[in-house]
């Protein structure tokens, strides 16, 4: 390549040409919207009197942020989002670790693991809004789940699943576990299979049992991937929208206890058209996800991955 330096330069301009579509589209549809979103957050801009009067846009500096934090709603929705994420993440990671350990255990020789892997991944591909509508119909007050529980004499009266905070949150978390544990299992399994097999052999020679091997070898070596899974799951958790939106028809009921941050943002953009507030919420989310992304980026770089 050094010999034909001129030629290489002639070819290398194609690097820019092939990169151009990505850059142009990125700038138009992501970078510019990001900038205008931030710009919006400094302006007073909403519809008043039931959508008749347009207020603003007037520059008000950081007033939107001040209002956002003082009104306190943002804390409630942040708390809801985090509770839903924790309810989803902890059972999911435990189940995925267990299944991943079994799938990657060569001594266990599970039959039909291809089938099981395919089945656990299936819910991830299902349209979240349709899946939520299904659960809404199934768990309705007069729905099949209530009628099943009644005919089994577990309950006498229909249980109002979607009128109680606990059960509504449990349904949302349960659906998210179903949709994501297959993906997590496959990621963890790939990590486990990447562990040097001689370590397991050595442990076996030393007389370690399966539990000891899991806690003393697999888990410590898996730590970077676990951290990666946790933070990407957290970033995903902050984006929780489709399931609670459809399940509660956008109200976040009962008593706004299942209203997430993105549902809050969606209300500002679509319903109240309060673009100033929507901007402030977006910037807040951008900062949080930006910091989290930076951590993911650092993990990926630190644990190599470069050939």
């Amino acid at each position, binding site marked *: 390549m050094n010999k034909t330096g001129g030629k290489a330069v002639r070819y*290398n301009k*194609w*690097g820019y040409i*092939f*990169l151009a*579509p*990505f*850059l142009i*589209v990125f700038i*138009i*549809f*992501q970078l510019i*919207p990001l900038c*205008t*979103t931030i710009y919006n957050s400094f302006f007073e801009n909403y519809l008043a009197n039931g959508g008749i009067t347009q207020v603003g846009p007037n520059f008000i500096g950081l007033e939107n942020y001040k209002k956002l934090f003082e009104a306190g709603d943002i804390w409630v929705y942040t708390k809801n989002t985090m509770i839903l994420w924790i309810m989803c993440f902890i059972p999911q990671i435990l189940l995925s670790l*267990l*299944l991943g350990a*079994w799938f990657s255990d060569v001594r266990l020789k599970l039959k039909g693991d291809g089938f099981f892997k*395919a089945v*656990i*991944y*299936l819910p991830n*591909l*299902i*349209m*979240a*809004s349709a*899946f*939520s*509508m299904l659960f*809404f*119909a199934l768990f*309705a007050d007069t729905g*099949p789940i209530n*009628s*099943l529980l009644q005919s089994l004499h577990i309950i006498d009266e229909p249980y109002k699943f979607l009128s109680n905070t606990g059960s509504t949150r449990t349904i949302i978390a349960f659906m998210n576990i*179903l949709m994501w544990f*297959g*993906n997590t299992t*496959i990621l963890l399994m*790939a*990590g486990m299979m990447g562990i040097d097999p001689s370590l397991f052999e050595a442990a076996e020679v030393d007389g370690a*049992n*399966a539990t000891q091997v899991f806690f003393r070898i697999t888990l410590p070596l898996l730590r970077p991937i676990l951290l990666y899974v946790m933070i990407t799951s957290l970033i995903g958790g*902050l984006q929780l929208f*489709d399931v609670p939106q*459809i399940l509660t*028809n956008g109200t976040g009921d009962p008593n706004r206890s299942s209203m997430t941050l*993105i549902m809050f*943002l969606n209300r500002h*953009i*679509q319903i109240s058209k309060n*673009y100033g507030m929507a901007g402030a919420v*977006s910037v807040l*989310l*951008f900062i949080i*996800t930006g910091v989290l*992304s*930076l951590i993911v980026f650092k993990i990926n770089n630190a*644990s190599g991955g470069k050939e």
Partner: protein
Amino acid sequence: MNKKKSLTGIHLRRFIAYIVLVIVTFFCLFWFYLLFVNATRSNAALSRGFSLIPGGFFLKNWTNLLHGTLPIMRGLANSLIIAAFSAVLSVYFSTMTAYAIHAYDFKLKKFMFTFILAIMMIPTQVTALGFVQLVDKMGLENSFIPLIVPTIAAPVTFFYMKQYMESALPLSLIEAARIDGSGEFRTFNSIVLPLMKPAIAVQAIFTFVTSWNNYFTPALILHDDKKKTLPILIAQLRSADYLKFDMGQVYMMIAFSIFPVVVVYVILSKNIVQGIALGSVKG
């Protein structure tokens, strides 16, 4: 003696593993079975209660839904068009972007690669407000363009393609093509793309499914009834007073949105599951 003990230990563990897997499988599939059963039952039968046995109302529910108030065939066509174009554009241009970084040495190469990885995790929701305003200004409300064209810049697909190229696309091959007088663009289209086929297939499926399932962005852009996609119609069904609906039709509508993906998945699941592991964290 020791050997025997560990043997029964493994039998016991295997037994437990199978039981847990069967339970997990049940929880994954039960809902879809129930959906299928309920889509075959009449509204009257559904209101009478729970059943695991399919009824005979499948065709009736289907024709009712077809002639009902929701424009489902239109929704299906809209969803298909958006998802198909997104998949094609996204994999083609992501492969091209990956190729730019993989095959050429230019000054900003390292910076661009780092930059794309850095923006990978930024969710689309945080730019949604600016995106909607931009689409309004461009007069592209109720158009499919703002839902299709942005998929050209897909960092996750790019990263997968880049990983795959490192193992499947030797630079000597490109060099050989150059010596044979092939232009850079032609080399990409006729040599690189065919070699990337397995990765392209996996990513095309993922992009298609993501777009097919997407609710947030289309709901912000598409307001005209003729342009709505299936997830928006589902949300519309939810916001209507559902008790007035024929529940057989409601289940049929859900099944109609879910089962195309399930069918594709059943045919291709082996490649898909392998594909996820292939592109996961470490290359």
